């Protein structure tokens, strides 16, 4: 199953890889890392709050795409009737709503750098040292551990059928599937359907908001960023490890999630990068489309927005 955006969802607090045994990349005991962790969470929360409060109102979302392009900054150009007709003709590209683009591009560059010096080499090592069979087991086990959060989101969305399936998956995979190592549920007609708090918020009618590239975490938007925070808070594994002061189990799991997600998608991401002119814009579009797909809105959109035959024109 192509879990394209697992890396972005699960690249949680990977700097805390430093406290996992054997890693001497970051100094400090888990206490100071917890402090750093809360500082990071606070700054992310501030950033998101800032973007929600101060971003252009959604009513202006349409206007944004059109008044800026093809104009020199600072120069006002009046649009005549023909221009307006043309603008109204083509639907606004909501997937391009990115008022913080220059800042996002900066963070994006930063993430690429961290990727290059840290995540990428680690994931290649993982890929080379652990055989496919082993990596698959790890992937499935991790996914099983995330089912409780999926379940919580199913309930919050009022999706009882989904909740039933998720519960079934968790029970079957944990027992028959040997603690989640094997995904037997899919063959029993209980397919995996990812749910997270960002999607739950979407189901409650919360708009996506401006596109955001989060440090380390990658592509997101204002709503989904809150979603990640929500998921992190809802995760029973995190409760357990914080309660029993075994913080580093949580970190290890996160670290392995990062590795697993990154390694699984290594080829795809590389190929995407090589084939795109503007990798930032490509990922932005992919993220938007991926979220739309997970929200089931595609059926309505599909009929309106694809290439189709028309009379040959000039």
């Amino acid at each position, binding site marked *: *199953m*192509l879990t*394209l955006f697992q890396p972005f969802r699960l690249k949680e607090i990977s700097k805390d890889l430093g406290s996992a045994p054997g890693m001497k990349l970051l100094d400090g005991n888990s206490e100071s890392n917890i402090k750093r962790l809360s500082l990071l969470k606070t700054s992310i929360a501030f950033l998101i709050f800032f973007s929600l409060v101060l971003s252009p109102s959604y009513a202006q979302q349409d206007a944004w795409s059109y008044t800026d*392009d*093809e*104009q020199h900054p600072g120069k006002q150009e009046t649009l005549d009737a023909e221009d307006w007709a*043309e*603008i109204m003709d*083509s639907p606004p*590209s909501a*997937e*391009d709503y990115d008022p913080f683009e220059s800042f996002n591009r900066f963070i994006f560059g930063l993430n690429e750098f961290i990727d290059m010096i840290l995540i990428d080499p680690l994931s290649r090592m993982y890929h080379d040292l652990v055989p*496919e069979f082993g990596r*698959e087991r790890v992937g499935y086990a991790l996914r099983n551990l995330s089912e409780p959060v999926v379940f919580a989101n199913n309930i919050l969305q009022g999706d009882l059928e989904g909740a039933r399936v998720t519960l079934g998956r968790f029970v079957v995979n944990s027992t028959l599937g040997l603690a989640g190592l094997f995904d037997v549920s899919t063959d029993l007609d209980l397919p995996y359907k990812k749910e997270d708090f960002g999607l739950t918020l979407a189901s409650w009618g919360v708009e996506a908001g401006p596109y955001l590239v989060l440090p380390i975490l990658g592509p997101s938007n204002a709503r989904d960023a809150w979603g990640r925070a929500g998921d992190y808070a809802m995760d029973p594994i995190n409760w357990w490890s914080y309660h029993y002061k075994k913080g580093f189990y949580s970190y290890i799991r996160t670290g392995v999630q990062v590795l697993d997600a990154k390694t699984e998608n290594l*080829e795809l991401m590389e*190929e995407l990068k*090589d*084939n*795109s*002119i*503007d990798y*930032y*814009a*490509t990922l*932005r*579009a*992919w993220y*938007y*489309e*991926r979220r739309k*797909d*997970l929200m089931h809105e*595609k059926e309505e959109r*599909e*009929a*309106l*927005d*694809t*290439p*189709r*035959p*028309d009379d*040959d024109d*000039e």
Partner: protein
Amino acid sequence: MLKKLLFIGVVLLAGLHGTMATVEGEKAEIFMTDIGNKVINLLTDKSISQQERASQFQHILETKFDVRAIGKFVLGRYWKHASKEEKEKFLALFKASTVASYATRFSEYSSEKFEVVGSRTEKDGGVTVLTRIVRPNGQAILIDWKIFEKKGELRIYDVILEGISMSITQRSEYAAVIQQGGGKVQALITALEKKTGKPIS
């Protein structure tokens, strides 16, 4: 005009007679199975050169897809602003870059299976054929193909990978490139030339 009326007539009839729509779906499924087999043969044939393979891909692209319509869509609102020359240049480069990107994707091919899973008639008169590529390790990638009939033959208008439309994402990317280049289509043409290594004079 007459063609349009005929087309509308067919679509209406398809609505009245469910079976007609099913036939459309079946036709499209056969169409895709056919293409799938062609491509797999192309990939597994180790005797032909990389050049030959690329040129055969191009042939498939030209005959089974509607490159002009896709290119026009992908250029989005900038199509109307482009001069005739820019349009032609862009379409040529778009074709070349598409062939190149699929060629690299397929170079890693190794005994994946291509299965047509089903089809779905859409409200806009097209048919979506659902297919699946099954990798040797058992994992499957879902790909949908949006097909319309044009001038009596079936053509592919969009490729949807795991729910993500390639045309829409590409349109978004190209729009960003054009915007970064000051709103000029030429900026995109230059970028594509660099990418494909093929200056079009």
